[in-house]
């Protein structure tokens, strides 16, 4: 079984009956490892469609989940259950609940560092005092506003006024949480979460390939959420200084939010500032200041200083990129594609009106960036299959478009793997205004293929 991965949470969704015989068939360690390789913050098993489970069935999952946590530091557990299932699990494991339980996957997302929508007001209750406190701290650290009910009565009273809260959290339990450097995207800024003591290990836990490719895709603002950092040593200091210097080549900015210098030598701050790192007391100081976001590069793309040219291998594999794009869009829109022109140059777009775009980077044995420019109508049509209905909601269309580009990226990855070429893909980036895209790609040459789906013109651009 494959996990559905969204916002850095991998969810497995078995259906029906789950016992000692079937659990091994639902999930294998290979399935878990494949999900963990996608750098997820959480690996969860959804019980939404499970009508029956017993302890033997859960034990098999728990064993695998624990191995993932030990290896990848991801938060693991179960989600999407009702009160009866929650109490059954708590009864099965009594004092040994080492995994987490989230009533819904939406609640799980509140605890994941990758959650995009912050500042949610959540009413929470747990019979266990320490759980109440742990949940409140986690929620607060993730930028939410927890409201704690101290008793069941208070919880019922407050939850009666459900509209006052974005989320109502009960029947939830935080087991051992992951300690991985998590990544989330807010607008066009990438936020990395740090915690505890930072030392030479940061070089191993920080995904430098992901970071470099995010730079290449056009992300220009990187914020380290450092509220939970206790202190750092000179090795970590050197790491961040180097990171900032390399980011400067792309005109990118690195910021720290919430870092306390109580236990970190204040001289470190000067050294880091000299390296170009900026410090902010609160995350909101950056995210809620649109002007500052724009200045720092978090709201629009900036021309990259480091122009790179396509390599032979990328050009050789060009048909696979086009195949992946065309086949996916044909499938999503039920329309046939026609190639109109192919040329090598900077991206050229005659009509910029009513168009949105998305890009996805790939790296590994070859690297580059795939850019797709969609007329609004094709984008809507493509997203209809994912959304299930026609929509004019621009945000929803952009969100679905990034899922679509993710599918195309996945297909490219699979097609290249068939050729023995191993690549990873970055998070997709979307552009509601193609002018931002043109700014980002200015000066970059690549292969542009103009396609037509029915009567709509569609642009494919492959660059580095």
């Amino acid at each position: 079984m494959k996990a559905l991965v969204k916002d850095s949470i991998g969810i497995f969704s078995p259906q029906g009956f789950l016992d000692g015989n079937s659990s091994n068939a639902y999930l294998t360690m290979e399935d878990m490892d494949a999900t963990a390789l996608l750098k997820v913050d959480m690996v969860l098993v959804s019980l939404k469609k499970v009508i029956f489970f017993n302890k033997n069935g859960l034990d098999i999952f728990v064993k695998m989940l624990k191995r993932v946590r030990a290896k990848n530091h991801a938060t693991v557990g179960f989600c999407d259950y009702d009160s009866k299932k929650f109490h059954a699990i708590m009864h099965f494991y009594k004092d040994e609940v080492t995994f987490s339980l989230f009533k819904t996957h939406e609640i799980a997302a509140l605890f994941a560092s990758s959650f995009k929508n912050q500042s949610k007001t959540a009413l929470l209750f747990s019979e266990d005092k320490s759980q109440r406190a742990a949940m409140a701290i986690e929620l607060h650290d993730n930028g939410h506003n927890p409201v704690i009910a101290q008793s069941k009565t208070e919880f019922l009273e407050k939850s009666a006024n459900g509209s006052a809260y974005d989320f109502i959290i009960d029947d939830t339990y935080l087991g051992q949480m992951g300690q991985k450097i998590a990544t989330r995207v807010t607008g066009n800024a990438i936020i990395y979460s740090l915690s505890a003591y930072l030392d030479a290990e940061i070089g191993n836990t920080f995904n430098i390939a992901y970071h470099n490719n995010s730079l290449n895709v056009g992300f220009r603002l990187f914020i380290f959420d450092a509220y939970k950092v206790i202190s750092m040593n000179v090795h970590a200091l050197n790491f961040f200084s180097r990171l900032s210097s390399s980011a400067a080549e792309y005109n990118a900015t690195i910021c720290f939010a919430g870092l306390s210098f109580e236990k970190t030598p204040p001289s470190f701050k000067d050294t880091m500032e000299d390296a170009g790192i900026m410090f902010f007391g609160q995350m909101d100081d950056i995210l809620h200041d649109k002007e500052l976001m724009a200045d720092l590069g978090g709201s629009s793309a900036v021309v990259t200083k480091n122009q790179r040219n396509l390599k032979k291998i990328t050009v050789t594999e060009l048909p696979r990129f086009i195949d992946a794009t065309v086949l996916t869009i044909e499938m999503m829109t039920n329309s046939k594609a026609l190639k109109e022109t192919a040329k090598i140059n900077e991206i050229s777009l005659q009509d910029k009106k009513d168009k949105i775009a998305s890009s996805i980077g790939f790296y590994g044995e070859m690297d580059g960036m795939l850019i797709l420019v969609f007329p609004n109508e094709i984008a809507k049509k493509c997203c209809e299959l994912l959304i299930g209905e026609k929509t004019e909601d621009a945000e929803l269309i952009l969100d679905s478009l990034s899922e679509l580009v993710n599918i195309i990226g996945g297909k490219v990855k699979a097609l290249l793997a068939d050729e023995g070429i191993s690549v990873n893909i970055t998070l997709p980036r979307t552009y509601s205004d193609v002018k931002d895209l043109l700014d980002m790609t200015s000066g970059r040459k690549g292969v542009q293929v103009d396609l037509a789906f029915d009567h709509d013109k569609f642009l494919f651009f492959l660059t580095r």
Partner: protein
Amino acid sequence: MQLKPKNIKKYIYHEEIYFPLMQLKLKCMKLNFKSRHKVITQTTINSYIDKIPPAPKALQMTIMFLDAGELGKAAQIAQTDLALSAYLRSIVNNPLYGFSHEVKEIAQIFGILGLAGSQQTLYNYMTSLLSPNKWVLFKMNKTSFRTLQDHLSIQWQKILKHLQIDSKNITNAISLLPSSIIVSEALFCANKEDVTLLRSVKALDYNTILKRLGGIDLFDVCSKIAKKWEMADEISQIIQAASGLKPSHDAQINLLGKWMHLLLFYELSQPLFIEAGLNDFLDFQPEYVADIYDEFSKLMEIA
């Protein structure tokens, strides 16, 4: 700048980009997008249904005689179809039925299975005729598909006995249910990779994908097959309710739909079918079956 050999050469020379000149040219020229997949539309679905052959004559007549209660005549006709006879022998001698001696005579087989059981077996045979020689989407084969049919049939009879329902049409309805799996296989096998990728970013079952692409769902296709095979309307109605998405206004049909939906997922939770990739080919609707679950678990002795 159009992609002409001359231009490329100049470009490469001046820009110092290493392009394998001829290779790029040839590959770009060959970008003709011959689809390796079939786009699924209403037309594709209709064409699939059109290609389904009507039930073989011998089979139709056997069913007709069984319908009239004439077991002897039905057996005589069935014997003329060698494939059907072999199927009937293999079914009744399956360990699931638990007969100690090999049963060879068709008349004897019909006698053992009874009127409703015989008809159900014939409909199972009819459905199995649709199954592909080589499965691509699901890790299935003729044997595992037969196992699924047998399991469903036996458990369905157990359920009907529990519900005290004695009706040929209702007994036969279960035979049509696995055709939803065959339809998924047939319509999606050419797009396996695309559908897998789609399902890796969005939790969509094959039924939903088909509905969104072609406007009709797997169970509508099954109903069309049932119509083509001249099966009773009641069978189609039960199958539609068994989708878990289209409750029937008829209380009995709705109840049977719930039992069938739960039975399907009970069977699809067996390791053989989970490993075949069938567990999530369809969305399970636990809320739909919530009110019969306790009764079901008692009947199936689920601990």
